[in-house]
């Protein structure tokens, strides 16, 4: 099947495909918006997402060199008291880890099977001896196990793309997987980030994995994007009513907060699209 013009493979659409091919088809091929709730307690869910987005912005501002005193004032005035705690945790535990050239909110991509794989990093550090360190800030409550993180699409894709495209940050032709480490830092569990070094074997495995996945998508006919057999996935899927897979949204407690994409809660304006308007 031909994917829409301008389509990029990202961690979230690959995860959607792996969860349910039909969800992928509705969302990215047909661009169907299905305005059901994702979780039952929508207000708390929204507040969690917005708080995460504000916290990410604070770190970004810190990394750009905005005076800490101003950021402290903003963190303390935040309506969500957790932000203050997360901010203190960050200041106590992270800055000393941030040695190196900083690439904040950097996007990198690499071609695969005539498609494009894209990753947007919270932070990439280029350190001495060409070590590249990815930082990903998480505000989710649980601190997962290392093995679980190693298996996530995000971990696999981010490290893979940095190996392929990180040369554009270092100015070198090639990056070896051994130069790369991915750090997840959890704001509510600030002690040390979970550090996941990369290696050639994992790189090869990831390459095969993503190639197979993309090839599978490209080979599918439209009518073969089937609904998942695992109906647990439908509890946290917007399309559940369209698929006759349930009535009520899943509960907030059971939602995998690791997958929360804070960007969805940022206010997105579209002034650029102003067309002629008859006043």
């Amino acid at each position, binding site marked *: 099947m031909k994917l829409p*013009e*301008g*389509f*990029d493979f990202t961690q979230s659409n690959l995860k959607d495909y792996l969860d349910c091919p039909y969800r992928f088809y509705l969302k990215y091929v*047909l*661009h*169907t*918006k*299905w*305005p*059901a*709730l994702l979780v039952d307690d*929508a*207000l708390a869910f929204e507040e969690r997402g917005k708080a995460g987005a*504000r916290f990410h*912005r604070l770190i970004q*501002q810190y990394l*750009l*060199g*905005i*005076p800490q005193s*101003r*950021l402290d*004032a*903003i963190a*303390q*005035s935040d309506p969500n008291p957790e932000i203050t705690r997360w901010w203190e945790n960050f200041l106590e535990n992270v800055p000393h880890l941030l040695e190196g050239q900083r690439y904040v909110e*950097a*996007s*990198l*991509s*690499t*071609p695969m099977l*005539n498609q*494009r794989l*894209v990753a947007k990093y919270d932070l990439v550090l280029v350190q001495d001896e060409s070590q590249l360190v990815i930082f990903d800030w998480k505000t989710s409550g649980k601190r997962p196990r290392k093995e679980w993180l190693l298996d996530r699409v995000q971990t696999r894709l981010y490290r893979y793309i940095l190996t*392929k*495209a990180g*040369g*554009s*940050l270092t100015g070198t032709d090639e990056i070896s997987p051994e130069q790369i480490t991915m750090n997840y830092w959890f704001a509510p569990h600030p002690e040390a980030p979970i550090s996941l070094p990369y290696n050639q074997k994992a790189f090869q495995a990831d390459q095969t994995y993503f190639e197979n996945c993309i090839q599978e998508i490209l080979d599918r006919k439209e009518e073969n994007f089937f609904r998942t057999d695992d109906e647990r996935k439908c509890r946290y899927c*917007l399309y*559940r*009513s*369209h698929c*006759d897979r349930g*009535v*009520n949204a899943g509960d907030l407690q059971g939602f995998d907060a690791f997958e929360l994409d804070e960007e969805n809660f940022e*206010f997105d*304006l*579209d*002034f*650029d*699209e*102003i*067309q*002629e*308007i*008859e*006043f």
Partner: protein
Amino acid sequence: MPSSKFILFGYNSTMPLTADQEKLIKQDIKSKVFLQGPAGSGKTTAGIHWLTKLIKAGIPPHQILIFTPQRTLSLPYQNTLYQEEVQAHGPVNSLTLGGLARRMVDLFWPLVGIDAGFGTPNKAPNFLTLETAQYYMAHLVRPLIEEKGLFDSLTINRNRIYAQILDNLNKAAVVGFPYEEIGGRLKSAWVGDIEQLHIYDDVQFCADQFRSFCLENNLLDFSLQVEVFLKHLWTSPMCRSYLSQFYRHLIVDNIEEDTPVTHDILKEWLPDFESALIIFDQEAGYRSFLGADVESAQSLKDSCDKIINFEKNLVSEDGIRQVSLGINNAIARLKGTPQSNPEPSFEAVRAAIVSPAENPKYFPGMVAWVADQIANLINDGVSPGEIVVLAPFMPDVLRFTLTNRLDELGIPNQSHRPSRSLRDEPATQTMLTLGRIAFHSWEMLPERINLAYALVQAIDGLDLVRAQLLTAYAYKKSGSDFPLHPFEAIPPHVRDRVTFRVGERYDRLRNWLENINTQAELPLDFFLNKLFGEVLSQPGYGFHDKLDSGNTVAILIESIQKFRWAIGEQLVSDEISIGKEYIQMVNEGVIAAQYVQSWETGDEDAVLLSPAYTFLISNRPVDVQFWLDIGSPSWYQRLDQPLTHPYVLSRAWEHGELWDAEDELAASYQSLQRLSVGLLNRCRKKVYLGMSDLDVRGYENRGLLIRIIQNILQHARRETS
């Protein structure tokens, strides 16, 4: 990923280059080039090759900035990165003035909140959409109209008053003059009745009130975003250093469609870039009503090392070029400044322009003629994607009539980014009507007939006759009780007619609406999310499997969500219900009056129906154009905007000069020339002229464009004979 579909000319970095394009590409990679030429001369294609050259030279894509007046114009550049041979390791950055200002204000807010005078600088900024800005403007101006008699001599819709005051603020920001001067500038150019001058004082007063309110409440409409960026961030070393380090190479396209403030910024910024390519489309400047300024765009030439000219239009065949020449000559004659250009050949013009043997009297006749001509063209082998139907504005009635006719003929067609009224969509009305039932304490219960319509949409298998019967017995508007009664409460003979299957579905919906707010009142957007997900999209209900309705409801919910995010805090402190306020604003036409579909799933090989200016900006040449309603003055006349003025508020206007009838006529000639020549530059073979004696509204059609076409033909015939 692009957020909207944009129909693109097939720009391709593998196409062979013209000599002009070769000349550009051979420039040193550290050059700063000003590239100018007419539309269709291959400038954007050359720009894409320039981008490819930068990437192949090893420049990281994130260091490249594509700057355009409208985001969609950067898509050809973005799409180039998908070509296999380009092998880019990341997306390039695309920005517009609005995008740059908003992004920088958001990022550097801790630095500007205090200096810019915001009331609570430690709290996050609240960015307003057009809708929410209009809401706040209405909130402030409505009492001034009702209680203080502002704008009392004007007889226009209030929403147009709000929109034009906002437009003035935006003009002040993008042209670069203090917003405090809006009223004075408008007054100084006014030549009409002196008693009308006070409306400009009213405009200024409202603009002042709005700005103070925004500052006090951390609200940033478009104009304030641009002003804060310009005054406080563009001058900040930290922000400038961030921008200079982040972006090292610049490509600007359609610079002539951008605003003076953009040109000022780019002029100051240029020395910081390692390379720059600035592309200027001659004979353009179509967005003057949005502040585009051709003259200030040209001033960027002086900041570049080299100016390259592309001379030749590569699109149009000779006949079309002859028509273009004829239009330039005819307008020069009408202006009293005839040129010494040769006259076009009569045969060539006649072959390039097609019009009906006899004009139909009414516009449906014109539509029928257009549809028949399109059918003939397709029968003769023209691809539908090579045909575009244009009018200065594409009113719904014209669009629907033409679409229906084309559908009847089996001709694939699509409408370019149709702006539609969200509140008029049946799915929207259904959701809001049911919302008014569930939130009955708001005392905004719907009319019985509207509820009947909503139930027809909501319940599968219910028709209007039975819905009216059902609501006649089950819907009671009086009292504070829940207004919908159970199915079993209506008389048995009515139940029989409605059917028990429908009754069961009705009961489930009724019970859901009655119980949803018993514990705590949900925000209206979440209420609608739940109503859609738990009831209306379930089997047995109207939106089950209706993907289009789902999309419409999603846009409505997004509009309410943005309203809640932008307005909610303010309303909660005033103890006003956000949902109730939203519905009232929808009823008044302040919000949800217009929306643009963000994604169209159209067939690209389809006849395109588009407003003329939208088509111009899309940079897409076609074989055949149909120009509709060519007798209409909309082809050249300004919109009637009594509270604003795009020329008087432009940078070129001398303060104190009067805007008189001569200026108006000169502006009309200029608009018509730019529009018609611009369209011809994007046409390869033929133009079909659609006209009727009376227009859509029944007015006689005798506009300037018809006279010009007649003038061209007369002169061409005389010259040829």
